[in-house]
């Protein structure tokens, strides 16, 4: 793992379509706005931002169908925004305001909307997604269940139970691992023996490692993977080496300054700004302003309500 962390600075990024760039920037400014609000004491509870990792769900967006299931995790705002383009509903959920996707009951890390679900226990979704994949295989062949995992999640036995069943039963289960090199405060090489690829291979499951943080490059690498999962009804593990630019949650980044600098050096945001300043500048400003407007709108709403009939 160490070798991949010290790789040379990546080459210049591919120029993106405006829509992709807008979505990347929407997620970035959404996350920055949350940290800003926490800093000012305007948000309650906790949150986990995906700063630096925004490109993962953006790359996957056109590869997924509304009929596919997506299982997200604690660090899921980017996953949600890439699926629904609904910053108002998500922010209302985080803030407990009217219009919240789940009436403020779930909050940042427990969201269910159509075929998108996030929950807050590591690895727990993997067998659940295997069950969904079993259903899809039987009744909607060609569709898949995608689970976002972190590198830390590979400490959980549930992941292996799910991989085993998915391989045995030929389930269209795609595990997307956002390996950001750190599990909360613990470096990956201090919590994961062997490798994720080796673990996938032990189950006879294909594994692809992608080191690029370029949305287009990642998308091109993942396109045949999703096709294969759909066509062959088979599990697959995709491991994206990524970089957590922000803290684990709010202000809890205990990494050394050079480690944070290393993550920042790989941040698509600064590199893209440098490569395409004109396109970037206008879109960045527009998304920043849009998110500010979302914040103002949602912050002005009344508190969300949880009706008796909705309490299970």
């Amino acid at each position, binding site marked *: 793992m160490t070798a991949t962390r010290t790789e040379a600075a990546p080459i210049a990024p591919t120029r993106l379509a405006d829509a992709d760039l807008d979505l990347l920037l929407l997620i970035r400014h959404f996350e920055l706005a949350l940290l800003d609000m926490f800093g000012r004491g305007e948000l309650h509870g906790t949150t986990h931002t995906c700063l630096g990792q925004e490109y993962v769900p953006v790359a996957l967006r056109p590869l997924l169908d509304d009929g596919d*299931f997506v299982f997200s995790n604690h660090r899921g705002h980017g996953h949600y925004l890439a699926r629904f383009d609904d910053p108002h509903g998500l922010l209302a959920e985080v803030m407990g305001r009217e219009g*919240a*996707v*789940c*009436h*403020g*009951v*779930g909050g940042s890390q*427990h*969201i*269910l909307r159509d075929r998108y*679900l996030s*929950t807050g*226990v590591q690895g*727990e979704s*993997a*067998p*659940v*997604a*295997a*069950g*969904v*994949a*079993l*259903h*899809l295989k*039987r009744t909607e062949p060609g569709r898949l*269940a995608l689970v976002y995992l972190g590198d830390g999640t590979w400490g959980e*036995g*549930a992941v292996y*139970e*799910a991989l*085993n*069943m998915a391989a*045995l039963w030929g389930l269209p289960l795609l595990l997307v691992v956002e390996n950001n090199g750190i599990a909360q405060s613990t470096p990956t090489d201090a919590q994961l023996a062997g490798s994720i690829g080796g673990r996938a291979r032990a189950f006879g499951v294909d594994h692809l490692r992608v080191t690029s943080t370029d949305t287009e490059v990642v998308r091109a690498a993942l396109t045949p993977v999703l096709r294969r999962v759909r066509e062959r009804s088979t599990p697959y593990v995709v491991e994206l080496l990524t970089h957590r630019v922000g803290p684990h949650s709010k202000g809890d980044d205990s990494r050394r300054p050079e480690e944070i600098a290393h993550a920042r050096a790989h941040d698509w945001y600064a590199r893209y700004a440098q490569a395409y300043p004109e396109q970037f500048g206008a879109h960045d400003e527009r998304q920043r302003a849009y998110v500010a407007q979302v914040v103002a709108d949602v912050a002005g709403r009344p508190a*969300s309500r*949880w009706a008796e*009939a*909705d*309490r*299970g």
Partner: protein
Amino acid sequence: MAERVVENLNQALHALLADDPALTVLGEDLVDPYGGAFKVTRGLSARWPERVLSTPLSEGGIVGVAGGLALAGQSAIVEIMFSDFVALAFDQLLNFASKSTAMYGRRVPMRLVVRCPTGGNRGYGPTHSQSPLKHFIGIPGLSVHEVSPFHDNRTVLAGMLATGRPGLLFEDKVLYTTRMYADGVVDELFRYDLIGPDADVARIRVDEEEQADCVLVVPGGLAARAVSVARELLLRDDIVCQVLVPSRLWPLDSDNLLPPIARAGRVVVAEESTAGGTWGAELAQVVHRRLWGSLRAPVRLVHSADSVIPTAAHLERTVLVQDTDIHQAVKEVVSGD
């Protein structure tokens, strides 16, 4: 002669699979010719090979898969080989299946039942003899039921799935080879009926006898033993004891349990769980709070000792609740005022 409990369960699963094409049954070693460790699933996989699945040894994973099927609008029944092993699925039950019914701010139906062969008296030792239902009492969104010889399992299982609320069905292993009661008859002295709007509580009483000296409330696994105790009490001690056996243990069926308890004014709750944090303690606090003015004695709890469950039969008896413990408790409660 009525069918055995294991046959009733097996027929219930056959009927449910036939009725509901969206139902999957899964667990370890379920398929034929083995047909499950206790043969409850015998013959199912031959008829429905696609919907009756033998799984790897992965209790957490299996319940997770079942939760995924339920999330996708299907129904799932899981067999855990020994209820002790449901501990391995605790996360999926506590944090996923039960919570998903409400934590997304709206009602999400989860048609999922986890069947758990449970209890001791078979010499299986400390990790194959427990009655862990108490660990699942008080989990929001999760129901707990126990098989009894009075409740038809097709009705019970179909009812559990229909609630859209995940549930555990504990099945006392000793019950499997005993016979179901039928037609309201227990023996020449006792009759039974199912009371309440959902016929959830079996009420066993001396023929035509409304007034009892004591009510004995037990989960299904202790039902036959409780009836035997009630018979002894009547014949030897001239104590009239009414036995109540709720199918659903959690949420507590207070509406159906409390009126007979109030009429008798005395109640013993017996169960096989080891001491501490028991279902009976939860029932007792409800009875004390709601019926304080009608009680002639405090609620008396009978349960197994605070101990691991030994393997050797003579040692196992020293830990698990015995008929004599229940008998003695009722006598003390009745003679105590």
